[in-house]
């Protein structure tokens, strides 16, 4: 099933969150090899997903390259979206 932009955005948030959660843990437990491997796995997934997302839906950061025109200001901005129903 084709997912829509909001669902793709939720997937991106979820990967970013997993990376952050591992980072906070590793900040304190920096010699935990298992946590490091988990961080690497999520970080790789996130990097790939973010590239794909930006190609399809537009820039998430100003570091994204934009093919035809400057799309950074295009809607929606984060506060415009009401994710009715939440993650489900």
């Amino acid at each position: 099933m084709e997912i829509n932009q909001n669902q793709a955005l939720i997937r991106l948030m979820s990967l970013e969150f997993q990376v952050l959660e591992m980072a906070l843990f590793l900040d304190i437990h920096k010699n935990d090899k298992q946590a490091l491997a988990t961080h690497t796995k999520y970080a790789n997934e996130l990097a790939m997903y973010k590239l794909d997302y930006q190609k399809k839906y537009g820039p998430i950061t100003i570091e994204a390259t934009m093919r035809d025109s400057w799309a950074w200001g295009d809607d929606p901005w984060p506060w415009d979206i009401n994710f009715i129903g939440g993650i489900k």
Partner: protein
Amino acid sequence: MWIYEKKLQYPAWVEGNDLNIAKLLYAQYAGPDSELGAALRYLSQRYSMPIPEGRAVLTDIATEELGHFEIIGTLIHLLIKNATVEELQKAGLGATYAQHGYDIYTQDAGGTPFTAAYFQASDPISDVYEDMAAEMKAKTTYERLIRSTTDKGVIETLSFLREREIVHFQRFGELLGLLEEHYAKK
């Protein structure tokens, strides 16, 4: 420095039938135990932090709190954006509307503007004790806010933020242990 990501940390949502919660949400936008206060507290405490674990976790939690500041702002925005002036007045937001229109101002639930007097940056050990207390107070505030509304979206979004306070409390507790070891070695 920081690079903006054009997305929220969490898919915030509102049903939109409870305008009264908008005013109360300002508690966590820029009140005493707010996300803004937490972010600025942790950022200000990094410079004298003697161990790398502390510098890293203060930076990363501060950054996450800025993301939470944006989530609370988004909830308020989604709740008020289609409300009429009369509805805003009934929901206790008449003064906020008169002074700030439909913008989200850095104030607490009672309308007091944000002040840096809400937090301290002093010395690493007492800073981390303050940080743990701040996370607990924020958690309690979220529980009160959750009890103050029937909006399922607001409740779900605040429940996520409440859980983050618990994780941050845990990380700061671990940091306190590392700091005590660090000073014991000296």
